[in-house]
């Protein structure tokens, strides 16, 4: 059926699909507003943490310890989401924790995505033994159990932001490499690549100008879909104690700490847990939308 539609030719000038594609999209109702909102809040809050947080995340106040959230009996508006065992404000820790999540996510994605993109392109384009070798490395990497490797790295390199970023990079680059390679194989068969060689382009130029721009869409979608994954890995590592060392707040750490108080002070675990869930959901929805937004526009033209 797609073949029939694309054959409907429309004379000189852009097809209606192309015109629509170059105009700003008019169907506002289809945008994932909730996702946008959550992501926007996350970014704003993380960046402006010192301005937004009502208290310092590390300031202890033992008399105020284990205060419930404001809407519960015993809570107060001084600590909207309550306090933890050391009297630290949960809301402020949540806000600063967002920072950690974002930084880790950004660093890991850029590094892991970048490496994965390059490997995928080189492997897919050059083929042959280079491809076989690289894909075996990818396969090996993918078979490692995620958290185990992250733990091993964390233990051997010591805790810290850097370690986590490295651990996550090591984990995700292989996924990117594999998917990008698949896309490259498809792009490689298109005539304009052969024509580029006929024009005399070097392999490097072909990769940079002809291959990369045509796999970027898939790559970007993959990036957004992995944000959720990365946040959860960081949270898991912190939960297991191999992540960001205290007193820097991290959502995973907060969940871990709150675990033992789950019956009495439920908010200590539930609040950061809900935050993780919301953010991951938002990014996943965003990634889905992005993929749909980019895809049919390309296919129809």
């Amino acid at each position, binding site marked *: 059926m797609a073949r029939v539609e694309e054959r409907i030719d429309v004379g000189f000038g852009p097809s209606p699909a192309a015109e629509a594609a170059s105009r700003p999209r008019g169907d506002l109702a289809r945008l994932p507003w909730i996702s946008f909102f959550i992501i926007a809040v996350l970014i704003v809050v993380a960046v402006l943490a010192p301005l937004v947080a009502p208290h310092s995340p590390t300031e202890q106040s033992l008399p105020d310890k284990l205060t419930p959230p404001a809407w519960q009996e015993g809570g107060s508006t001084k600590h909207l989401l309550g306090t933890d065992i050391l009297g630290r404000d949960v809301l402020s820790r949540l806000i600063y924790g967002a920072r950690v999540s974002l930084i880790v996510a950004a660093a890991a994605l850029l590094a892991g995505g970048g490496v994965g993109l390059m490997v995928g392109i080189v492997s897919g384009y050059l083929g042959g033994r280079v491809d076989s070798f690289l894909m075996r490395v990818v396969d090996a990497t993918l078979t490692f159990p995620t958290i185990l490797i992250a733990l091993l790295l964390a233990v051997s390199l010591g805790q810290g932001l850097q370690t986590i970023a490295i651990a996550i990079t090591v984990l995700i680059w292989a996924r990117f490499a594999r998917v990008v390679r698949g896309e490259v194989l498809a792009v490689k068969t298109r005539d304009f690549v*052969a024509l580029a060689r006929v024009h005399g382009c070097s392999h490097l130029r072909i990769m940079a100008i002809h291959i990369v721009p045509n796999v970027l869409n898939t790559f970007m979608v993959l990036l957004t879909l992995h944000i959720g994954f990365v946040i959860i890995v960081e949270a898991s590592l912190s939960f297991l104690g191999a992540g960001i060392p205290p007193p820097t707040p991290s959502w995973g750490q907060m969940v871990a700490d709150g675990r033992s108080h789950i019956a009495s002070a439920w908010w200590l675990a539930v609040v950061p847990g809900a935050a993780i869930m919301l953010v991951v959901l938002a990014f996943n929805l965003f990634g889905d939308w992005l993929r749909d937004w980019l895809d049919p526009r390309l296919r129809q033209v």
Partner: protein
Amino acid sequence: MLESGAIAAEPLIRVENLAKHFPVTRGLLIARTTGQVKAVDGISFTIGRQETLGLVGESGCGKTTTSRLLLRLERPTAGRVLLDGRDVHALTGADLSQYHTRVQAVFQDPWSSLNPRLRIRDTIAEALIVNRRVTRAGKLERVEEVLHQVGLPLAAASRYPHEFSGGQRQRIALASALASDPELIVLDEPVSALDVSIRAQIMNLLKDLQVRQQLSYLLVAHNLATVRYIAHRTAVMYLGRIVEHADTESLYRGPLHPYTKALFSAALPADPDAPREDMILSGEVPSPIDPPSGCHFHPRCPFAMEQCSRVAPALKAVASGHQVSCHLY
């Protein structure tokens, strides 16, 4: 064929005993070669200046591989491709750059021939950018010149491929082949993916450009009528070999090889009253991995003789400018 005694100017392209075999491999960890796909199995031809050679045949005959060998998209297993007497597969450096400006191509699928992420002017000027130093102004000037040559408006230069129809994209592809002022353009099924009424436009354009820009063409096509319209000489290929090679008129008026006759009879004329002398070939086209012995066509040939299965016939001239590879002659 040349008359004896005449001194020939070296043709633009000379192909000598060109062959391309692809190994067939089996096995996952250790690949074993179990056979060869003899896509091109020893062919020779020439293309003169401002001349069009048509290469016809059905799928698996090797015509596309031949065009790729000329374009250096494949390396030959045997034989040579000579441009002005020089082996194109041995070129390096500046000579190679020069080769790329002299030999260009237009392929079949207008929807896959243009990089959707590049503006038209960048696609068109690529051969220039890569092989010679052109200034930005020089590039734009040349782009405008070739757009004009192919009949597209100058405004097209800043647009993207998706804004154009199939016929227009083929014109853009042609413009991109013309940008470096080539001497030979390899046309691989240039009109078969286009609408019937657009084909005539593009074919006429190709003919006009040949005269105006002094171009030679290697036209690879399966549509015999298209080839008759554009090609000066035509070679018929079957399973990697040339079975007949002649002036187009001489070939179409009097095909000699049984395969050529079958091919021509299968091309249905647009005339309900045309006499029907169908030469329906039995069987399927054999696989190029294991072609029949001797003359590749003998299993399907209605005139096969005893020696046809033993000895492969040589390509020899039976009339001026007309060569056939068949034991009947």
